[in-house]
């Protein structure tokens, strides 16, 4: 059994007269989705390993409002946004790391006009900077050595915010056999979850988008497809299941790969 390490909330730190250097914005998927919770815990492991003084909002965190905004409900979005900004400003939060590209995009790009100004990074950017600083180093005999790994660009990290390099740099440290999908970077194909599609049935068509995307993964002959978004994770895993490729293809988040490669 691993040691259970306490994850402090900002409120707890405040009660001790302290403040975090970094707020970890967990997000709804990271909080409630069982698969995404594993990513959440791995991000915490990384933060604790490198000794960053971080905290979560815990029950004070609430949806950023992204799915409401992309569904067209500006009221619900702004309501969520302003309540979150009140909480964040109340704790004088300056720097935020998010596990989800949708949270990342919303807080970074859409909160400032509503009065919320923070330095926001995505966890892949944080991991990359920790590698650059020498604080993370994959084990020489890490389990990914020689494995064929590809990366699926989340739309809200890639095209929306032009973060293409950070996740790739993390994978480059593994000494693995890296391969690009035929549609990658700014030409990447969506997993099918964005724009609130995650929460509804797709419109009639000839195929589901996640299946189309997993076909790209199959074509790449990769054993592992790295994701950087909890919704892409769900979509890709479902697609792999539909294609009955669970034995051949694993879907792992960049944070999970980092934890395993560093044996944290």
């Amino acid at each position, binding site marked *: 059994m691993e040691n259970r390490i306490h994850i402090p909330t900002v409120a707890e730190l405040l009660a001790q007269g302290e403040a975090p250097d970094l707020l970890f914005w*967990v997000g709804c998927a990271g909080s409630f989705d069982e698969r995404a919770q594993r990513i959440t815990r791995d991000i915490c492991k990384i933060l604790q390993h490198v000794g960053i003084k971080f905290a979560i909002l815990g029950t004070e965190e609430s949806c950023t409002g992204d*799915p409401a905004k992309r569904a*067209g409900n*500006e009221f619900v979005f702004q309501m969520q946004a302003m309540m979150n900004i009140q909480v964040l400003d109340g704790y004088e939060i300056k720097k935020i790391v998010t596990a989800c590209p949708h949270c990342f995009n919303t807080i970074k790009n859409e909160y400032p006009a509503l009065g919320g100004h923070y330095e926001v990074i995505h966890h892949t950017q944080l991991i990359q900077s920790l590698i650059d600083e020498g604080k993370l180093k994959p084990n020489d005999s890490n389990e990914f050595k020689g494995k064929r790994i590809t990366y699926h660009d989340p739309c809200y990290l890639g*095209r929306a*915010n032009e973060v293409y390099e950070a996740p790739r740099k993390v994978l480059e440290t593994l000494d693995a056999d890296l391969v690009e999908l035929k549609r990658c970077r700014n030409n990447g194909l969506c997993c*099918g979850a964005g724009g609130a599609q995650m929460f*509804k049935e797709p419109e009639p068509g000839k195929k589901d988008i996640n299946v189309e995307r997993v076909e790209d993964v199959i074509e790449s002959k990769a054993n592992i497809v790295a994701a950087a978004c909890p919704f892409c994770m769900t979509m890709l895993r479902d697609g792999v299941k539909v294609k009955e490729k669970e034995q051949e293809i694993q879907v792992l988040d960049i944070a999970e790969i980092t934890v395993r490669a560093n044996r944290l």
Partner: protein
Amino acid sequence: MISQLLFAIVFIAAVLFFYKNASKIYRNIRLGKSVNRFDNPSERLKTMLHVALGQKKMFKRPIPAILHLFVYVGFCIINIEMLEILIDGLVGTHRVLSFLGGFYDFLIASFEVLAFTVFVSCVVFLIRRNVLKLKRLNQPELNNWPKSDANYILITEILLMTAFLLMNAADYKLQQLGTDHYSTAGSFPISQYIVGILPETVSSLVFIERFAWWFHIIGVMAFLNYLPISKHLHIILAFPNTYFSNLEPKGKFNNMESVTAEVKAMLDPSLPPPSGEVSRFGVKDVHDLTWKNLLDAYTCTECGRCTASCPANITGKLLSPRKIMMDTRDRIEEVGKNIDKNKSFVDDGKSLLDSYISREEIWACTSCNACVEQCPVNINPLEIIMGLRQYAIMEESQAPSSINNMLGNLENNGAPWKYAQADRANWVQN
């Protein structure tokens, strides 16, 4: 003298007619709501130079990019020749710029080479559209007029280039025969090969040369006046449209200020409720779009790179970003004609949403920005789709039931799923 007069009349009529139709388009675009795209001129200029002048985004698809580059460069440079044709036509001179000597020969030679590459590229484009039937160029929204429009443009360009080369060939032969008025000028690397098929008599050659000259100039003026009703308008509007591009990250959607005031008043009762009626939330019709959305619609040349990259369209859904732009243009044109007829817009019982764009289309979008990324002239179909969704949700409460459930969960639990906010940090214990 008569021909000079005729030329002047044709020229002035063409310019006036174009001005009339262009100003209608300008008026229609101005029907859109305001949006500030006048900041940061140096960045805007840079974007325009890269994307429109430099064709940067075209090169995502190298083969059509190179063919298009031939047509584009050919079109721009051969139009220098129009200057000479214009002076010759109005003053009655012949090849007035030939005093440039060697440089003139160089110019004519390069026009000829370019005309030939334009000719070949247009033939290849016609084959791609009509013989190879590329999927992107044969999707349902292109049926009827859009398909004909594309072919008319290509055929016109082929005819114009043929006339240009035929004119040079006849001129060249007349020069060789030492005919009066046709002094030796120019260099003819391409048309020299057509000379062989031309008749020998001077009168026939003069007829061919004059006919081709008039055909070319009238063709160009007719083409100019075809632009306002054609997708080919992009040759002009690509420049302002890229200049007025969105310079923010693609993921950043604008916040509605009218909503901000209301939400602030809700959260803080001490604030006075916002005054003034908001006319409408979101987009029902073209009047609710911004002028940039409308400029986008007029700029769209229906190449379909957006649709070919759209995850919804690729997987067989009804949504096609290209159709969103074509519908928007069709509707604003309809509204414009309505205004022409009635002095001001009279309700015609139609709207962009439902009369043109269906609910099924707007709800299929994943907001992935692939269409925005692919567009070679920085058109944004996503913004229009989001505006239509805002209207459907905020004005009509019409959304797929699962979306309404998600929104209900968000309002009650602070998460899109039915989990209590109090359980949000339970993962810490697991």
